[in-house]
């Protein structure tokens, strides 16, 4: 089993965090993992993406150029990365932020109004997790149980209350039919 996952959007959208959760899930399952961020010089609002490789074999290049799973939170990234998705791959796109649609038919694309869903449910900045929920729902690569463990590992004590919010966001994504 090898997953090459790319998450992409603006800085500040929680791209790296979402990738980290996936990486931790894989860690709990004893996989080989690499997680590689790439961002511009801006603190917020700049291009930001994250490559996550999960495999049973040692990982060579950690850079995901042709993802089989793409999570994408803004228009420019949608345009830049959808063409590179491997045939048979899956795309999870935040349709609150992205107007475009792809006409590729060799991949599956899920349009989730993630930002809207998050906002509507008082989960501001939760779009990343909403999309993750959808991804897990569609691929089943990790259970929500495992994600909760990853969240626990990656949430400082004084922000522990956010864990439940994030689990809610996950569920929102999973439940979204769209």
């Amino acid at each position, binding site marked *: 089993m090898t997953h090459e996952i790319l998450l992409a959007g603006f800085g500040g959208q929680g791209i790296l965090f979402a990738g980290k959760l996936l990486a931790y899930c894989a860690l709990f399952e004893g996989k080989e993992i690499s997680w590689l961020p790439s961002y511009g010089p801006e603190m917020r*609002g700049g291009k930001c993406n994250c490559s996550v490789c999960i495999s049973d074999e040692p990982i060579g290049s950690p850079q995901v150029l042709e993802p089989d799973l793409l999570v994408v939170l803004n228009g420019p990234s949608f345009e830049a990365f959808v063409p590179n998705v491997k045939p048979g791959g899956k795309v999870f796109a935040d349709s609150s932020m992205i107007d475009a649609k792809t006409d590729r038919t060799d991949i599956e694309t899920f349009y989730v109004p993630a930002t809207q869903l998050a906002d509507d449910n008082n989960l501001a900045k939760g779009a990343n997790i909403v999309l993750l929920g959808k991804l897990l729902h569609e691929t089943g690569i990790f259970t929500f149980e495992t994600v909760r463990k990853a969240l626990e590992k990656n949430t400082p004590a004084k922000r522990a209350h956010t864990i439940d919010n994030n689990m809610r966001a996950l569920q929102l994504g999973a439940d979204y039919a769209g």
Partner: protein
Amino acid sequence: MAKMSVIFDRCKGCELCTTACPKQIVAIQHEKRNKEGVFTAYCTDESKCIGCAMCAMMCPDCAIVIEK
């Protein structure tokens, strides 16, 4: 007669302009995101604007134009 207008795609929704207006007629709308995904500032009551440009002075992104 004065007119404050926000350049939709330049506004970053930082809200600094909203604090500067002596007439308190600048606010953030939650209807439509611009291409950066931002809910932008707008003038809540054009008739009250005195064109003082305080909002524009405060805007870090030159996103406000004032006409008079």
